[in-house]
């Protein structure tokens, strides 16, 4: 598969703060590529440069063979963008929004009308098409926001955290839509800070943190980086001190790494069953009460933890 997107050392600085510190990656035609990273990692900034909204401070990218810095107009015709924050006219109806944005993408006449109807069907809002967007629920607005990005059937669709702040049902619908679109041949660049979404959707994942791409590959490739390890997540009582426990556990035999993530302690080990008793014993010894324990197979979360020593989610 040829590359539809090639990013070369993209850098973006705001004043003396560097939000994106030289990101290089490719996206193959037909795949779903996820950029996984915590808040403030630089996902939106990267998308803004790729979609020609902001000029990169240095570096360049080509999309469909066109340079984002030299031929932005050609790039814009290849891509569709679903921005992280809703970008809609609340005083217009869903249909009016779709018609306006369709026109902005050069659609008109019959093809516009039929495309708008198609998209309304796709996002499940045909019935409410004539209501103003401001009367919609958060989930419905998100769906319109996505619909706008689909109108002109872009070859490459950027979706910037499209599921943030919505109910599980709408989230499910959105993830299914993404998969459908991909089956129909659309290439997708999807950003998220949910490990599960990246895991479910993507062929390949780039992990981004503090403006740097710290890992890149298929899920298997990435989890192999962590090695044949498992993660124990220890949930402790509210009044307990996770730092103390983490320190104590670091000395336990078989523990590769023990870190505090929020109010949990994550322990990376080769085999969870082997150290379980020792871990619990150590906690008891320190008088720290463990409320529950999860054992996790290697996953993207573990990869992130392994690479940064921090949890992906800060909630």
């Amino acid at each position, binding site marked *: 598969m040829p590359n539809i997107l090639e990013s070369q050392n993209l850098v973006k600085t705001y004043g003396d703060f560097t939000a994106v510190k030289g990101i290089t990656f490719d996206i193959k035609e037909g795949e779903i590529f996820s950029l996984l990273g915590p808040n403030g990692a630089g996902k939106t900034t990267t998308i803004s440069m790729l979609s020609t909204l902001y000029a990169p401070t240095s570096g360049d990218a080509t999309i469909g063979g066109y340079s984002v810095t030299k031929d932005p107009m050609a790039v814009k015709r290849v891509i569709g963008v679903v921005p992280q924050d809703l*970008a809609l006219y609340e005083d217009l109806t869903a249909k009016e929004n779709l018609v306006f944005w369709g*026109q*902005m993408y050069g659609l008109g006449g019959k093809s516009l009308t039929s495309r708008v109807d198609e998209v309304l069907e796709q996002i499940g809002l045909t019935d409410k098409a004539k209501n103003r967007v401001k009367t919609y629920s958060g989930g419905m607005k998100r769906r319109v926001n996505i619909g706008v990005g689909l109108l002109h059937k872009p070859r490459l669709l950027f979706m910037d955290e499209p599921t943030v702040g919505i109910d599980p049902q709408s989230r499910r619908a959105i993830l299914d839509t993404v998969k459908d679109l991909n089956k129909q041949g659309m290439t997708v660049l999807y950003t998220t800070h949910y490990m599960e979404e990246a895991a479910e959707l993507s062929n390949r994942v780039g992990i981004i943190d503090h403006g740097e791409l710290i890992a890149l590959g298929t899920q298997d490739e990435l989890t192999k980086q962590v090695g044949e390890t498992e993660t124990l997540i220890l949930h402790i009582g509210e009044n307990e001190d996770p730092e103390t426990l983490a320190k104590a556990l670091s000395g336990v035999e078989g523990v590769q790494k023990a870190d505090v993530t929020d109010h949990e302690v994550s322990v990376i080990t080769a085999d969870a069953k082997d150290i379980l008793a020792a871990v619990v014993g150590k906690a008891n010894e320190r008088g720290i009460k463990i409320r529950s324990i999860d054992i996790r197979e290697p996953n993207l979360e573990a990869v992130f933890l392994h690479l940064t020593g921090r949890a992906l989610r800060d909630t």
Partner: protein
Amino acid sequence: MLKLLLIGIKDLKLMFRDRAALIFMLLAPFLLTIGMGFVSGRFSGGSTGLSDIPVVIVNLDQKELGNALEELFNSADLADLVEPTASSDPEAARRLIDSDQASAAIVIPQGFTDSVIPAEGTTFDSTAVQPAPVQIEVYANPSRPTGAGIIKAIVDEFLSRVEEGRVSGTTSLVGLMQSGLLNPQDVASEAQELFANVDESESTAITLKTDTQGAEAVEFDLLAYFAPGMALMFLMYTVSYGGRSILAERSQGTLPRMLISPTSNAQVLGGKVLGIFLMGVAQVGVLILASSIFFQVQWGDPLGVLVLILAAVFGATGWGMLITAFARTPAQVGSTGAAVMLIFGILGGSFMSLENFPPFMQTLSKITPNAWGMDGFVTLALGGTLKNLTEPVTALLIMGALLFAASVVLFNRNGIAQQ
């Protein structure tokens, strides 16, 4: 070009859905126009325009000039406009005014003619120092400023012709009268012609309209002053509302979204500007239509009105853009816009004729689209046509162009996508 129009029309549509904005754009100026109409007495008496202004004339001079002035007021030409009554007692006349029985009293003192024209027999010596003429008094009724103002205007005009004659010797009206070549009726029509000239060249709240035949119809509808005054003032609200929408679209993400569609920065900015322009034209258009329908305001030459609206909105749009280019948040545009609206409203003569302002304020008023717009609308209401609008229209177009250039420079420096 198409995209420009699409963006502009979208903004117009959004404006008509924003009820709060419509109140400011349409209802407020409309109600204020009515209010100003009541304050100025436009709706009392049921007649349109000014007519039959009651005036008391006390002619103590009883010689050529005094009689000429009295006859001027009694002439057929002014019959519709004024309703003169004669009196011989200045005190009684003043009392009539104080008790609101008439708009003004004119007291022509004894010896007025003699103070102007040397008595027969004395040789006329233009180099000799002449005594100042005895003053004619216009005792005005403060509760009827418009009527009193017109009476005063007529007397002033008469006196300026007299003064002209006095300075230039005998060539003018006085000389002609003295030599019997001109009778008082002619003086009246001479004065009328003069008013007509004044109308063409100047604009004031209270000017006299003479139709081209030069005959009767002396009429100026005050609402033809207040209606455009209010429309122009609230036009400043609309352009800052439009400017605010640029920043609002930026923070609500729709501006960036337009910029990442295959649309150039220039098209997006142009479309937003067109949107402001269309909103302004729609607003002023609706207000003008409403006052023609509800108040029978005569706006004058339709083509002139159209061109003037377009030019005034263009100039005002420039201000809207400049305010926007300087502001950081939509709220800042809103508050700056409101302040500018009031300042321009006052400075531009939306409430009060610019003639009442000191000269430096009159000069300052030239930076407002309001002043030029008022100039144009009054010219039209007084019977002027597109031909007479060259000055205000040119000024408004230059104003708009300069302000656009300045705001585009500012926008480019800050980048329209970045916050």
